[in-house]
């Protein structure tokens, strides 16, 4: 609100020495970038000269700003370049093509509508995008698009599949079969079911980390409702024979859930020929965004689930909640690209693993966790005996990897996966997971060979266990305090 005195805006008036003075506002064209009179800031009394001087100041400032920004960017880029990312099994960067697609689904100019809105074009357009993404996902997996349900990620998919099936079919029985090396998103769900009086059988893998189909067959009982096993193990990359296991579960009329978070888009999956009933997927493991996943639910024979979320009836009532169009479109595009690039990506990864292994395999006391055959080459887990994993990660400071060592986990327990393979605890503590991906460069893998060799030998130099090993002392015979 402005007061007026004799028709004059009060903002132009000020009182000094008991007299009202009028401020003459500086016209816009006479202001510098901060709003000050440019005749003062340039020191030019003459208006024309002042304007010219302003242009010069502005362009100087601009070029200074641009060059500084470039410097910052290149500094950031070089830090990133110096740190090699070998943790693709943990998460992947989003593919630029995916980002472009996602951008179109956010603003007013883009497809921002609610795909559940049936009454206007904004909703219809969003629904179209969501369904296109669903087709992309189903084409990668060779299933019916109607068999795909969007979720927030593989963890939710696992929860929905296991709890949903166990609850829906509990009149048939309350026995579930899984394995000791599943992801926590499956194991913790099973622990929860145990509290609800379900009985869970945790199968042991063989020493390479494979769940044998025979073990599944032998564990199936009259009251078994569900078998839940992973396709590719996230720590060691070992691939389970889901085809053979599916044949067994189908013959025994038991539902088969597969956690495919690590495998979808990386190795071929043909749901048309597999006897898999439920399958969990994640976008961020395959160059899509975080926070989106899907669950495959077979239609023939029809699998029914009790929903976890109730609400607006989206996804045929199995998973209520407004669909995040941009996330879904991102996942669809990521899966479409994966479909195109799978063979090329897989070839590259196989090559990377060979380079690393050929460079390291002659080292003393080095162990492959899992097996090189029958495993996904993007995940390569090695134990360097007598060197603790976290210290090795610290020594390899320019390489981003993860470890099965207790010290990198909040629980202070070494990897339960490696222990389930029968690896002694000390080898579990000494493990490093290298996981490569689409943006890994050959020279990064080549450089890693010498870095690892160098760091391991330095750490062994300060390791009392290595010293004892060299002295021929049997560490198993020592009574440790």
């Amino acid at each position, binding site marked *: 609100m402005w007061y007026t005195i004799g028709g004059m805006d009060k903002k132009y008036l000020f009182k000094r020495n008991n007299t009202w003075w009028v401020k003459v506002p500086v016209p816009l064209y006479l202001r510098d970038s901060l709003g000050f009179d440019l005749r003062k800031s340039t020191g030019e009394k003459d208006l024309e000269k002042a304007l010219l001087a302003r242009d010069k100041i502005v362009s100087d400032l601009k070029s200074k700003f641009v060059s500084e920004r470039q410097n910052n960017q290149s500094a950031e880029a070089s830090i990133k370049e110096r740190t090699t990312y070998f943790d693709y099994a943990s998460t992947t960067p989003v593919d630029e093509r995916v980002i472009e697609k996602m951008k179109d689904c956010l603003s007013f100019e883009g497809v921002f509508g609610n795909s559940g809105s049936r009454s206007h074009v904004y909703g219809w357009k969003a629904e179209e995008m969501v369904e296109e993404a669903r087709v992309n996902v189903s084409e990668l997996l060779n299933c019916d698009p109607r068999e795909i349900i969007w979720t927030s990620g593989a963890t939710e998919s696992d929860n929905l599949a296991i709890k949903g099936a166990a609850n829906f079919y509990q009149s048939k029985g309350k026995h579930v079969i899984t394995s000791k090396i599943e992801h926590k998103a499956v194991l913790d769900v099973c622990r929860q079911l145990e509290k609800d009086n379900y009985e869970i059988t945790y199968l042991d893998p063989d020493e390479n980390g494979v769940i044998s189909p025979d073990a599944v067959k032998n564990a199936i009982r009259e009251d078994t409702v569900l078998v839940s096993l992973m396709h590719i193990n996230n720590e060691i990359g070992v691939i389970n024979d889901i085809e053979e296991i599916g044949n067994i579960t189908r013959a025994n009329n038991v539902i088969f859930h597969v956690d495919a978070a690590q495998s979808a888009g990386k190795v071929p999956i043909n749901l048309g020929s597999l006897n898999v009933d439920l399958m969990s997927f994640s976008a961020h493991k395959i160059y899509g965004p975080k926070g989106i996943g899907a669950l495959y639910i077979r239609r023939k024979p029809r699998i029914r689930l009790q929903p976890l979320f109730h609400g607006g009836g989206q996804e045929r009532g199995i998973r209520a909640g407004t669909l995040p169009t941009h996330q879904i479109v991102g996942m669809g595009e990521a899966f479409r690209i994966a479909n195109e690039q799978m063979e090329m990506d897989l070839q590259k990864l196989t090559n990377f693993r060979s380079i690393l292994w050929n460079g390291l395999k002659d080292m003393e006391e080095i162990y492959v966790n899992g097996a090189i055959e029958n495993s996904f080459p993007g995940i390569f887990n090695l134990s360097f005996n*007598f*060197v*603790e994993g*976290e*210290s090795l990660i*610290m*020594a390899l400071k320019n390489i981003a990897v993860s470890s099965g*060592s*207790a*010290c990198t986990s*909040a629980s*202070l327990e*070494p990897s339960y996966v490696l222990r389930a393979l029968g690896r*002694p*605890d*000390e080898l579990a*503590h000494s493990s490093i997971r290298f996981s490569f991906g689409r943006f890994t460069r050959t020279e990064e893998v080549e450089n890693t060979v010498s870095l690892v060799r160098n*760091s391991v030998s*330095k*750490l062994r*130099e*300060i*390791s*009392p*266990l*290595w*010293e004892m090993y060299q002295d021929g002392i049997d*560490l198993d015979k020592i009574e*440790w*305090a």
Partner: protein
Amino acid sequence: MAYSQKVVDKFEETLNNPEKASVGRWKPGDEDFHRVGTGIVGAPACGDVMKLQIKCKNIDGVNRIVDARFKTYGCGSAIASSGQLIDMLKGKTLEEAQAISNQEIVDILELPSIKIHCSVLAEEAIHRAIDDFKSLRTND
């Protein structure tokens, strides 16, 4: 979890210049080996093992640690903690060394709470080494 710069520095110092950081050992047969007390604590299955050796000399009737060596298998903070302990030991009498508490190491290295056991290991190592040295003396 990110370590303090102090842990990182101590770790890298130890790794890159082990001799200067007192990494090493005295073996039976070495000169003055009868004046060396050894303490080994931890277990490979737990992910850390620390081996500490102290060389003591009787100076004016008091046993002083004149030199110390160590080797450690363990996470970065376990290696840094042992390096830190070594720095604190040299020149101390056995009584003074016995009084070193793990909290001092925690404070100096700014160890995160989940890594406090690394400093406890260091404290146990010096106690073991002192005990070992004293048992040698009584057998003299």
